[in-house]
């Protein structure tokens, strides 16, 4: 059969497996075309189109949910649709929808209301979805770059803002470097197995002798590239600058969706390819996790900029999530999935409140901008309190349940010292998160303006808060969903 016929057959057969991505890409391109036709006052059509794209994609994703054990492979086994993909796909789409809702008013204030913004968001979502779906090094790498390049542009989207440009440049340079390192690791994997397919690589890795140098070299380079993407110590330096400079909705998007996507990649590679050589990476991974918790939680204490504070705190959260992988049992992986799922909501929520504070002439991302928020906008203050409690891991919020699962897994696997360290880092976290609370509730308001919540922001905030509380008070459905996502990795 000629190649083109084969490709056509594969496409016809597997098209429905990539339909969610196709729809996102289609709507993204529609926005690019449409944007030329829209007058300045009609830009909300872009928003509507983008949201519609997300909804269509979510429906297609929903139809993929009932899957046989091990998932369905397509396109010559270069992608695989499994519960793992469906789970992460929903996180990406939810995060994308939230961030779109949060962007509308923000872009108007910044006077950067261009259609490309939403198109790029959808394109990056396409990248994320493939990142969770890919079963082939080439697909994975391309997906990663699709996502990352969209993010480089988005984080520099405030062309006239110095910080935004600086952040974008740093992100680009370090990101390109880390992608290079990751690609090097991928090339070593190809060298080891003679294939780019993850299944074939996993089989080849399983028969390597223990502590094989080549394998360890690939492990080190792949891990370094991935640690950069998830902003784990010592590859975290870009995060605070990028978060601070990027448009706030994009900072939220990076910290929530891009992080989840990178974790999807990390989990897929570590749970399949590197699972047989677990002993070689567990030690390093726990060191990285503890270092991330330490640096994230200690450095956040002294921050006066909210976005930087959240950047450091997100480094700390990465540490907790990695600990779930260190434990590596079912409970730990369930915890990882639950943590990533709920973190998307409560972290996006915290950023959403910062976005609400953005007004003409006020950037609103300093801690002092929160002063007296409870008098100026009590709803925003209460919502921020919910998100902060969740970030700090205080019940009855999702953050507590996520941490509980991680501690559970650590104790179950006899990692007592790690458990004690992890549990004690809640204290500095509470200290700096409650600085936010103190500024909102105790400090007198310096400026008396009342930030207004736009309808889009209201929907996003309400969703995020409802999810945060629901997953804290009645976590059962969320736990089930998290367990569902894990039907894959152990199966193979």
């Amino acid at each position, binding site marked *: 059969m000629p190649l083109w016929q084969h490709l056509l057959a594969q496409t016809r057969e597997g098209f429905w497996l990539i339909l969610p991505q196709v729809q996102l890409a289609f709507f993204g391109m529609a926005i690019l075309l449409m944007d030329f036709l829209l007058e300045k006052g009609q830009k909300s059509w872009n928003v509507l189109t983008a949201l519609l794209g997300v909804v269509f994609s979510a429906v297609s994703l929903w139809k993929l949910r009932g899957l046989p054990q091990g998932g369905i492979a397509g396109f010559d086994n270069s992608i695989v649709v499994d519960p793992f993909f469906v789970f992460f796909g929903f996180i990406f789409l939810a995060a994308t929808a939230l961030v779109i809702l949060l962007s509308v008013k923000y872009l108007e204030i910044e006077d950067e209301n261009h259609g490309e913004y939403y198109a790029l968001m959808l394109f990056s979502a396409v990248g994320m979805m493939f990142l969770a779906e890919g079963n082939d090094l080439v697909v994975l790498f391309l997906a990663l770059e699709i996502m990352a390049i969209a993010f480089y542009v988005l984080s520099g989207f405030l062309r006239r803002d110095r910080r935004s440009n600086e952040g974008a440049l740093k992100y680009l340079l370090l990101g390109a470097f880390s992608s290079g390192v990751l690609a090097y690791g991928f090339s070593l994997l190809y060298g080891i197995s003679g294939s780019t397919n993850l299944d074939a690589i996993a089989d080849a890795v399983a028969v390597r002798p223990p502590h094989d140098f080549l394998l360890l070299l690939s492990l080190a380079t792949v891990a370094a590239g991935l640690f950069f993407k998830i902003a784990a110590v010592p590859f975290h330096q870009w995060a605070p600058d990028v978060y601070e400079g990027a448009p706030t909705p994009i900072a939220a998007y990076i910290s929530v969706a891009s992080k989840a996507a990178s974790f999807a990649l990390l989990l897929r590679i570590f749970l399949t390819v590197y699972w047989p050589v677990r002993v070689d990476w567990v030690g390093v991974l726990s060191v990285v996790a503890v270092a991330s918790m330490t640096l994230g939680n200690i450095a956040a204490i002294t921050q006066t900029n909210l976005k930087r504070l959240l950047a450091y705190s997100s480094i700390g959260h990465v540490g907790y999530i990695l600990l779930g992988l260190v434990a590596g049992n079912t409970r730990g992986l369930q915890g990882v999935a639950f943590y990533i799922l709920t973190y998307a909501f409560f972290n996006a929520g915290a950023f959403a409140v910062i976005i609400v504070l953005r007004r003409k002439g006020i950037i609103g991302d300093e801690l002092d901008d929160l002063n007296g928020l409870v008098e100026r906008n009590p709803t925003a203050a209460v919502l921020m309190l919910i998100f902060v409690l969740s970030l700090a891991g205080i*019940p009855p919020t999702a953050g507590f349940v996520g941490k509980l699962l991680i501690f559970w897994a650590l104790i179950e696997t006899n990692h007592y010292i790690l458990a004690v360290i992890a549990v004690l880092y809640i*204290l500095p976290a509470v200290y700096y998160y409650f600085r936010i609370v103190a500024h909102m509730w105790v400090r007198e308001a310096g400026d008396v303006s009342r930030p207004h919540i736009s309808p889009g922001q209201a929907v996003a905030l309400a969703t995020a808060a409802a999810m945060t509380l629901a997953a804290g008070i009645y976590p059962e459905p969320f736990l089930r969903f998290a367990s569902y996502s894990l039907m894959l990795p152990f199966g193979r």
Partner: protein
Amino acid sequence: MLFSDSQILNTILYTPLVGAFVLLLIPRGQGAIHRWVGNLFGFLGLAVSLPLLWRFRIGQAGFQFVVDRQWIPSIGAHYTLGIDGISFLLVMLTTLLGAIAILSSWTAIRKREKEYYILLLLLQTGMLGVFMSLDFVLFYMFWEVMLVPMYFLIGVWGSERRLYAAIKFFLYTLAGSVLMLLGILAIYFTAHTFDVRTVLAAPHSLFSAHLQNWLFWAFFFAFAIKVPMFPFHTWLPDAHTEAPTAGSVILAGVLLKMGTYGFVRFSLPMFPDATVKFRTIMIVLSLIGIIYGALVCMMQKDMKRLIAYSSVSHMAFCTLGIFALTPLGLTGSVIQQINHGISTGGLFLIVGMLYERRHTRKISEFGGLATPMPNFAAIYMIITLSSLGMPLLNGFIGEFAILRGAFEVNKAWAAWGVVGIVLGAAYLLWLYQRVMFGNITNPANEFLVDLNVREFATLIPLVLLAFWIGIYPAPLFRVLDAPVHQLVIRYDPAYYGAQPAAPASTQPGRALAAPPANLHSLAAMERGN
């Protein structure tokens, strides 16, 4: 329906929460409405708990009014509530002090009333949940949840150094409880359940002696910081001093009891070997707390700080009674916890009333207040006497029982405890003398108004209870008999004589009408008298 056996605890638990939601719906700026609604639900919270008084089956071993539902099947957590004699008394104390604390805020709190009453009511639900929970996860949730409203009460409505005090309170108590969380998980991996009843019902501890040592300390920090035991008490003077009056009343009256309750409910029955092993340390810390707290009181210039340190001393009596591990010690300890809630709660109310009138808490600013405020002087005197352990008042009963219980084990413990009582009388009476007696030296004090009706209403219930417990404590002893019995036979199966099987568990009594199943502790009490 709401008051059926399976619902009454839910009703009590969620009445304040409903109140908080109702307040949430009333727009801001309506101070008067918030006050009325807040007080309404404060009172309602007390009212719905009253049926327990005659419905609680005295002498019946085990937990009553149990609610048990699936909650998070994935991790095996249940929604389980239930009370025994010990938690019954603490629940009643909580609902009473909750209502009083809310009433006492009427004029004291005039900023952000909406949030204030919402937080007080949320706090109430959190505290009740701690005393009612019979599932470890649920217990831990309530245990931590109630830190948040308390943080705000101190941080927003406190005095000058409120932010420092609030975060100090939060971090100290959190530091203890996060370790307890690990302990709870470790329990799960041994007992394979989060159900408190199952773990407690095991005739012998489910945990190996080695594991008990670890678990004992994991739980110890959570409880010892809450009590607070020496040397973990340093958060308490700051938190008490900076908190608004209602916050101090709740802190002293209820929050500290969570620590002692934790010891009695969890540490003692679950880790008997470790308890015996570390008992001396606990006793020594308690005795240091009694003496040290009292001595520090002598040096205080601030009324509220003095009373705060007196809590260190009085709560150390409670831990002394607990770790004496005798029926009288344990019973006395629980009674003393109630007493401390009544007396110290009352003292904080009194300081709050003075503060509202003079906006200072400095002892040197006062003097001779008995002349312009005779009614105030009388009630203050009664509460002071109740706090220092005057016979006929409640403090005596608790302290006497504790000392008697400690005496059974070691005479020296009791002797040191007595020193604490003497010192307690000294600093409390000296405080009273400096504030109330003598000539009015400060002209600002000349025309202070005496108590008004609302202030009477907050203090009179406490005074009545003080007399009632002081004169006729038998019902309390009867209520506590069954749970204390169960505890003591874990440590000394021969203590109650030939028949080790608890008679309490075989013949459930019916309300106050039924005779107490075991009169031992009562009889001992009377012999002692």
